[in-house]
C-alpha cells in the first residue's frame, strides 16, 4: 500500500469514527509520521495494547512517549502506536505509518512472524495494566474503533488481536479478547453501532456480565445454582463446571442470530442497561427486578405457555427446547415460537 493509500485509509477510519459520535484528535504530522521507510499497510490486523500508564496520568499521560519513543541503552524509535485511546474514550491519531508496537511474535493468520508492525494498526490504550477498570466510554470507543478499522480494511473481527495473543512476552491487554471480538463483530454486522452493542461496553468482562445476569434476573449468586438449569442452558454456562461456553458470545438461532448479551440488551432496551449494571455492582438489584418486572413477566408467561404446550407430548429435553425457543422469539419481538 502506498503512503497515499495509507493516508486515505486512516482518513476514512477517522471519518467513520466521527460519524459515530467519537472524538478523534490528530497529532500534527501524523500523516507523515513513521518508524520505518518500508511500505506500510494497516489492513493486516488491529493490535490492542495497554500502555501501563499510571492512573494519575490522566487521559493522555503516555501520548508524548508514544510519539517520541524511548532512548537509552535499548532505544526504540517512535511512534510506538498508530492510535492512542484515552481513559475517557477520546482517540488520538498518532501516526499513519509503521509504528513500533508489535515486535517479535506470531505468525498469526496472514501476518508474518516478527513483522507485524508494517501490516497492522496498533492502538495503545490508557490503562495501568494492574486491574484498572476501563470506563464504559473507553470500551465503547475501542469496540467501535476496532469495528471501524475492520469495515474500512474489509476484514472480520478475527483480525482484531490482543498483543498477548501475538506474543507470550506480553500480558496486554487484560481484557477477554473473545468477548471483545464478539462485540466488534456485532458492530461490523450492523455496519455501525447500535444500542444493543453498546450494552456490553458497560461491562469489563464476561464474568461481570454474568454476575449481573445472575443477580438481576435470577436474584441469586453464581454459587447458588439451584433450579437454574434452563437459564444456564440459555446463557451457555456448563451445568457441571459453571464455565462459560462460547455460545454465550456466539450467535444463537433462538435469539434471531443475536448473541446472549445482544438479546438481553434488546429485552432491557428501555432503561435496563444502567439498572443491570447497578445490579452487577450489587448496588440495588431489587430495584432492577422491580423495573424489569413487566418485561420479565412477558417472557415468563410465554415460556410457561410453551412448556405446557410441549409437555403434552414431549419429554424434559423437548420442553426445554420449546421454552428456549419461545423465550428467544419473545426477546427478538416475534409472536410465536
Amino acid at each position, binding site marked *: 500500500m502506498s503512503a497515499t493509500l495509507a493516508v486515505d485509509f486512516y482518513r476514512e477510519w477517522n471519518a467513520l469514527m*466521527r460519524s459515530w459520535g467519537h*472524538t*478523534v*484528535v*490528530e*497529532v*500534527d*504530522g501524523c500523516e507523515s509520521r513513521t*518508524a*520505518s521507510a*518500508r511500505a506500510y499497510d494497516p489492513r493486516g490486523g488491529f493490535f490492542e495494547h495497554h*500502555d*501501563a*500508564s*499510571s492512573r*494519575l*496520568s*490522566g*487521559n*493522555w*499521560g*503516555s*501520548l*508524548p*512517549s*508514544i*510519539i*517520541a*519513543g*524511548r*532512548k*537509552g*541503552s*535499548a*532505544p*526504540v*524509535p*517512535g511512534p*510506538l502506536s498508530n492510535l492512542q485511546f484515552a481513559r475517557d474514550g477520546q482517540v*488520538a491519531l498518532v501516526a499513519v505509518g*509503521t509504528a*513500533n*508496537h*508489535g*515486535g*517479535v511474535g506470531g505468525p498469526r493468520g496472514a501476518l508474518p512472524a*516478527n*513483522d507485524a*508492525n*508494517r501490516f497492522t494498526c496498533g492502538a*495503545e490504550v490508557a490503562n495501568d*495494566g494492574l486491574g484498572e477498570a476501563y470506563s464504559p466510554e473507553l470500551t465503547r470507543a475501542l469496540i467501535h474503533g476496532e469495528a471501524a478499522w475492520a469495515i474500512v480494511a474489509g476484514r472480520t473481527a478475527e483480525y482484531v488481536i490482543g*498483543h498477548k495473543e501475538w506474543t507470550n512476552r506480553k500480558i496486554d491487554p487484560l481484557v477477554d479478547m473473545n468477548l471483545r471480538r464478539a462485540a466488534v463483530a456485532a458492530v461490523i454486522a450492523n455496519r455501525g453501532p447500535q444500542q444493543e452493542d453498546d450494552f456490553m461496553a458497560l461491562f469489563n468482562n464476561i464474568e461481570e456480565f454474568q454476575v449481573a445476569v445472575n443477580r438481576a434476573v435470577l436474584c441469586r449468586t453464581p454459587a447458588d445454582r439451584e433450579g437454574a438449569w434452563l437459564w444456564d442452558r440459555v446463557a451457555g454456562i456448563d451445568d457441571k463446571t459453571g464455565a462459560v461456553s462460547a455460545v454465550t458470545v456466539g450467535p444463537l438461532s433462538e435469539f434471531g442470530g443475536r448473541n446472549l448479551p445482544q438479546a438481553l440488551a434488546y429485552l432491557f432496551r428501555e432503561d435496563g442497561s444502567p439498572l443491570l449494571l447497578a445490579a452487577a455492582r450489587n448496588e440495588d438489584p431489587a430495584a432492577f427486578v422491580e423495573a424489569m418486572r413487566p418485561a420479565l413477566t412477558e417472557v415468563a408467561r410465554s415460556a410457561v405457555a410453551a412448556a405446557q404446550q410441549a409437555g403434552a407430548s414431549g419429554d424434559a429435553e423437548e420442553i426445554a427446547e420449546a421454552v428456549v425457543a419461545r423465550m428467544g422469539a419473545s426477546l427478538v419481538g416475534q409472536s410465536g415460537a
Partner: protein
Amino acid sequence: MSDPTQAPDQLDGDLHSLSDDEYFEALAAMPAVRDADGSPVDVTGDVQDRRAEKAAAAAAGQEWTP
C-alpha cells in the same frame, strides 16, 4: 523488553519502562494536537504540572509513573 539487536521492524516499546526524564523530554517536544476543525487541543492540560504531581505523589507515599 525490546532487544536492540532486532531488525527495526521487529521492535516494540515498553512504555512502563521509560524513565521520568525521557517522559519529560518527550512532553517538552510534544507536537500540537488538533480537533476535527483543525483547532488546537490542549492534551497536555492534564499533564502540565507533572513534576509537581510527581512530588506530591512521593510526599503521599504513592508511586508515580509517566
